[in-house]
């Protein structure tokens, strides 16, 4: 029983950091950046590259996330700021192009074969019958810690208040003297960092591979929308909901219905289930389950 919860938590951790970054940024610049998940992929490869030159793992992770944040900011300034002037639709298509270019660049430089980090193998921890590896435990703890930091940042500091004001009403915020550009750039950088960190920590378990971004695209967007854009707790809650659905439904034994010992739903249907939840959410609760903040659907 506990193993299911642990698995759900692990899956949440996979998604949470990237969703958090996306949610905060989407709330501010108001267009869905499809390339966001590719930033995660870039972060994973950067971490791998830095780590393989001998730099200790934790330092490599930090460096990779900083570099990813920088990459995000640069792309935002050079490409998306210009495209946004023509509207969110063009920006979205532009993010598509950026996504392709990033994947192509990584594919050309690193090849299509997944790169595994050389993490020394350690016996998994056993907590009350549930098992998880040390790497995964760190991942979950880091995610929780960062979430706590963000909640504090957004709700208890000046900077956070400024960010929320900007997301709500840019014109008014600008008029009240908030430096919109600086704040947007800051949020961009942070969201890039989060994506890079999320991607690299995910890659510690699964290896850095070019499809890392595409695989995360729909779950991350589903989680972000479910949680309501611009709402960090919502983002993680959305990720948790998606993860729970995926984990719980795969573990229900339909055997008794069919007269056999064990009958399970094929695992690949689970991603379909998450997307179905997303569609239902968009139909009935398009502002997200928690219905606050960004009011634009």
């Amino acid at each position, binding site marked *: 029983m506990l193993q299911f919860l642990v698995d759900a938590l692990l899956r949440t951790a996979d998604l949470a950091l990237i969703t958090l970054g996306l949610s905060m940024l989407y709330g501010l610049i108001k*267009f*869905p950046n499809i390339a966001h998940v590719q930033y995660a992929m870039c972060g994973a490869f950067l971490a791998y590259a830095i780590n393989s030159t001998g730099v200790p793992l934790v330092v490599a992770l930090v460096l990779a996330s900083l570099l990813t944040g920088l990459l995000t900011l640069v792309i935002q300034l050079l*490409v998306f700021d*210009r*495209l946004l002037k*023509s509207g*969110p*639709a*063009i920006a*979205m*298509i*532009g993010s*598509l*192009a*950026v*996504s*392709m*270019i990033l*994947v*192509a*660049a*990584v*594919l*050309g*430089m690193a*090849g*299509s074969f997944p790169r595994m980090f050389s993490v020394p193998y350690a016996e998994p921890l056993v907590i009350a019958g549930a098992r998880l590896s040390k790497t995964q435990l760190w991942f979950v703890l880091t995610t929780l810690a960062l979430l706590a930091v963000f909640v504090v940042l957004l709700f208890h500091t000046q900077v956070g208040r400024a960010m929320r004001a900007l997301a709500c009403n840019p014109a008014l915020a600008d008029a009240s003297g908030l430096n919109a550009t600086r704040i947007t750039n800051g949020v961009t950088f942070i969201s890039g960092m989060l994506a890079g960190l999320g991607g690299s920590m995910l890659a510690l378990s699964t290896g850095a591979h070019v499809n890392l971004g*595409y695989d995360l*695209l*729909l779950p991350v*967007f*589903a989680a972000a*929308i479910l949680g309501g854009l611009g709402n960090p707790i919502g983002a993680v809650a959305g990720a948790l909901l998606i993860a729970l659905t995926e984990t719980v439904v795969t573990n229900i034994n339909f055997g008794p219905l069919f007269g056999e010992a064990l009958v399970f739903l*094929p695992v*690949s*249907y689970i*991603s*379909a289930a998450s*997307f*179905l939840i*997303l*569609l239902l959410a*968009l*139909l009935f609760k*398009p502002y997200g389950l928690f219905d606050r903040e960004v009011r*634009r*659907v």
Partner: protein
Amino acid sequence: MYDFLIFTVTIAGIYAIMALGLNVLAGYSGLLNFGHIAFAGIGVYATGIAHARGWPVLVGIPLGMLAAMLLGWAMARLGRRLATDYWAIATLAVAEILRTVALNEAELTGGANGITGIPSLFESVPGPWNQVYFTTLVLGLVAVAAFLSVRLGDGRFGRALRLMREQPALAACMGYNLQTLKSHALMCGGAITALAGSLYAHYFNFAGTEFMLAAETFVLWTMVMIGGIGRTSGVLLGVIVVQMVYAFVPFLRDMLGFGSDVAGSLRLGMIGVILLCCLLWRREGLLPEKLRNPA
């Protein structure tokens, strides 16, 4: 070499029909459908399933088009209250759901293996001629689709779509039912694309799910955006540009001797760069939409 050219031209033709289908909803109507490949997938599998079930295989074509129209109508209803970008993500989700179903329902779709042995359209004709006939058919259909597209664009429906795209409030004031317009646009574009999907199945004699990845929709979008959104000749130009890049890279690879990964990366990268450049500097595409002069 001659055969390879025919191959490239035929594939370009099939993609052209799909792109023209996308143009009806994206170009004329401004609908951001990021799951467009689902329509093509429906066409591919309709033909495949018709073959697997032993029905006359040509039944797959109208079946696919009907199913696509149904999906189009459903997608339009989905978009009733959603803003453009949310709807785009929703369409992406719909395409993924369909792909997952196709991947798993082995009895219906052959699951991960797909359906093989789908006959070509001119099986009984010998030698290289069956290829030529098929290519001619495809090119003919491209011409028909292009003609229809131009007529549609210049006609009342097309004008209504453009109005809905530019000034939805005004369109509503003038008495157009926006929901119906969207529905019709999606059904139209979807049916055209499904037809191309069926042709694809006949050409490769195979129906599989690799085709239904989101990446393929992006290729179609690139074709439409590069060429010139909303303008038929622009879309065709976009198809040619993208196909040339696709066809050119393997030759480059043979000449310079680099690996398949780099080749794949070059193809994707070049398309992405071209798309981005177009968006940054020539937003309307290489052949911008012709606006009618009021006089």
